């Protein structure tokens, strides 16, 4: 996975995941920014030009990290929520709404997973019935796994937190959408799934 540059928000420059990603993409120019919006949200950007050599933007998600899914949009397991830890996708599928949804073709990765996890916990505590958490509607969570370590962090989180009793409705499930996921990681995930994390990957 090659990026034309890595932009890093000053606030998360020392974050452990940021440091790990920088080490992984060594040799790629690193540019320190204040807020991801000053690169990602600028007017007049050209999606097609940027898509030829996209950059990775590492940022911190502020405010509410977990949001309720629209009414009637959910699984039977319970109330639906979604979170966006990443914006844009490394693929360029003709049919996909992500082509041009944002002003920029660069990828934004919010590295403060701990805040997303806190948000998930908070929503779960608020609801007695089961809860379903969607991730990856603004990205392809799993395709970027070697960089984002999304499954690596969230599967153990869900494993730890989920009550595995099938008769217990107070469970957390998460669903990620992907157009591609490496075989070796799929196997590892499947192993985790069999451990009963309540996570499923949905092929796009």
């Amino acid at each position, binding site marked *: 996975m090659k990026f*034309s*540059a890595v*932009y890093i928000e000053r606030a998360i420059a020392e974050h452990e995941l940021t440091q790990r990603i920088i080490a992984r993409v060594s040799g790629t*120019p690193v*540019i320190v*920014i204040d807020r991801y919006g*000053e*690169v990602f949200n*600028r*007017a*007049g*950007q*050209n999606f*097609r*030009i*940027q898509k*030829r*050599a996209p*950059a990775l933007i590492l940022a911190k998600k502020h405010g509410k990290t977990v949001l309720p899914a629209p009414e009637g949009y959910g699984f039977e397991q319970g109330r639906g929520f979604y979170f966006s830890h990443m914006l844009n996708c490394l693929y360029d599928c003709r049919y996909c709404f992500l082509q041009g949804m944002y002003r920029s073709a660069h990828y934004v990765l919010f590295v403060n997973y701990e805040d997303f996890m806190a948000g998930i916990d908070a929503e779960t505590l608020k609801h007695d019935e089961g809860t379903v958490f969607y991730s990856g509607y603004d990205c392809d969570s799993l395709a970027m796994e070697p960089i984002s370590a999304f499954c690596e962090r969230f599967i153990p989180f869900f494993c730890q937190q989920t009550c595995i009793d099938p008769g217990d409705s107070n469970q957390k499930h998460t669903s990620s959408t992907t157009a591609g996921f490496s075989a070796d990681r799929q196997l590892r995930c499947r192993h985790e799934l069999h451990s009963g994390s309540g996570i499923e990957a949905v092929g796009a």
Partner: protein
Amino acid sequence: MPIISESVLLTLVVALPAEAGPLKDFFQLKPLRATTNVFQSDQGIRLLVTGVGRKNLTQSFARFAGSEFAKESQQVSPAWLNMGIAGHRELAVGEMMVANKISCAVSAQSSFPTPVLSGNHYGEVLTVDEPELTYPQNAAYDMEAHAFWDMALNYGMLDLIQCCKLISDNPHDGVEKITAALIDEIFYAASDEIRQHVDLLRNLAYEQQQLISDPVPYLEIADRIHLNVNQALQVRRLCQRFVALNRESELEALLATGYRSARDLTQILRESLKSAGKVTEE
């Protein structure tokens, strides 16, 4: 590599006549009528020599934008490239650095050129009002880049506004050693890299122009036969569909077989798209 239309213009911006000299030579640039600081080639490259500092650059842009020539010109310049010398704490004299961040020392504002150019060195260009002799930051020190960015945004396409600096001084070789001959030398040494950047930006600009302009087959048809407004809309749309489906060669073959009228032509094009199951009714 596509054949680039001359209507795709790239504007090079430099501060000093000494920086302009080698570029005029590389791209066979000639003075533009009634101007003393604007040069242009037949190949769609323009050069603006602004003078040193943010104020001079801003005034040069304003003067040029207000000139008779700029008002009359049909050419737009989506691509802008600021070339020039700069000082750097670590890079050797003669090295080229592609700017991925342009900051202003006075306002502390930063801008971020889209990383489309590739080079050996990338980094921040810090625009100062006085020559910097101590190089406190690991950045290229110049006197125009930030003003260039602000001004070029008014005329160009954000992703095609770029800045490259050639290192002219560092802690070992100070500003006092900079001469016109040295500038000449480092520009000539970097000529291949400069050409590469210019070609890349022009190619990108050309591709963008192609995406928004009428398909070439449509223009040929419009030249050959009379189309009323409705027919022109239909034929343009049908040609765009062929192009979008990567079936340009098929379109050319259909046009080569001939057609009696505009009505006949729209029928042929529609049938062909339908037969491949790709057409959707208008």
